[in-house]
């Protein structure tokens, strides 16, 4: 018997056997459907979790927006009017005059120069009213940009805490905090990162 004869007989023998695939086919289909449902279930659950996270994020943003302190809103509007739009105001540009004005309002004159040690240069200063309270408005410059710093002696009514926080009001980005002595708001319409960096540097020296 040649290899071909043998192979042919083996093939014919094995292929003559009946092979019922129905049970296996049904079982496989059922398992695949079950797993697909399982996967769909996970996908739905994952989508729900993502939706919840997004909703929570949006709610948090809305909440943050709602609780932006009125002082920050006023500071942003003042910065917009006096710095961005350049509405005419009387400014002091002499350091000693600004320091004297600060001392009159209970803000240590050393705070003004201390802020200047963080890489920003004092440009001018004046008094302004925010939430019906007098604040010292200082304008510092760095790299051609102007940033506003609003200072007031810290009272028991200070709306801030000691950690530096961020806020946005319209195009203005703000960072604010209080120290043992002062309540401070930093405003920049060009860069939130710059306002925050200046505020963090200021928090260390004020």
């Amino acid at each position: 018997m040649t290899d071909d004869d043998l192979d042919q007989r083996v093939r014919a023998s094995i292929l003559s056997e009946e092979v019922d695939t129905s049970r296996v086919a049904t079982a496989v289909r059922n398992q695949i459907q079950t797993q697909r449902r399982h996967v769909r279930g996970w996908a739905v659950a994952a989508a729900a979790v993502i939706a919840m996270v997004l909703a929570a994020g949006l709610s948090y943003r809305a909440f943050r927006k709602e609780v932006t302190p009125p002082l920050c809103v006023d500071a942003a509007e003042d910065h917009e009017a006096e710095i961005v739009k350049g509405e005419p105001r009387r400014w002091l540009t002499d350091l000693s005059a600004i320091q004297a004005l600060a001392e009159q309002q209970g803000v240590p004159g050393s705070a003004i120069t201390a802020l200047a040690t963080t890489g920003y240069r004092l440009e001018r200063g004046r008094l302004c009213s925010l939430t019906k309270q007098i604040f010292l408005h200082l304008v510092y410059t760095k790299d051609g940009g102007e940033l506003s710093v609003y200072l007031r002696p810290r009272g028991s009514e200070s709306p801030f805490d000691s950690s530096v926080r961020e806020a946005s009001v319209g195009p203005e980005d703000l960072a604010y905090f209080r120290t043992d002595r002062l309540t401070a708001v930093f405003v920049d319409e060009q860069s939130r990162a710059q306002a925050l960096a200046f505020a963090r540097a200021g928090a260390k020296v004020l």
Partner: protein
Amino acid sequence: MPQLAALLRVARRLTFDPVSAEDLVQETMLLAWRGFHSFQTGTNARAWLFRILFNVFHGQGRKAALASRPVPFQDRVAPGLQEAAEIAEALDALSLEQRTVLLLAVVEGFTCQEIAGILDVPIGTVMSRLSRARQELRKNLAPLAKEAHR
């Protein structure tokens, strides 16, 4: 479902147990479905399926399979196909390795190269196993052939 009959045919001669064979093929098909992303388009899908089958079979424990006893051929073949039954019996008497390469080469039509890929053994091993399987099968069939000539 493609290749189900071929897989089941081979699985039955690996396990010698219809239920175990169906379980083996079921597991194979599910693994193929889950791992379809790993199948490279343009390669041999049949060989890929059989490779999974043998991986599952070896993973399930080869000792158990070797300890199995072939079921009587009357349970597997239609009555009247005496020669087919005798050949099947002779085939089942081969060692697992010889039976495997013979089934893949002769019944399923794979080349030695493809079988080497399926079983993950060198092609020379496949060729020698196939040659010995044919010799062994002839030997097993000889008494039956003599009886047939009487």
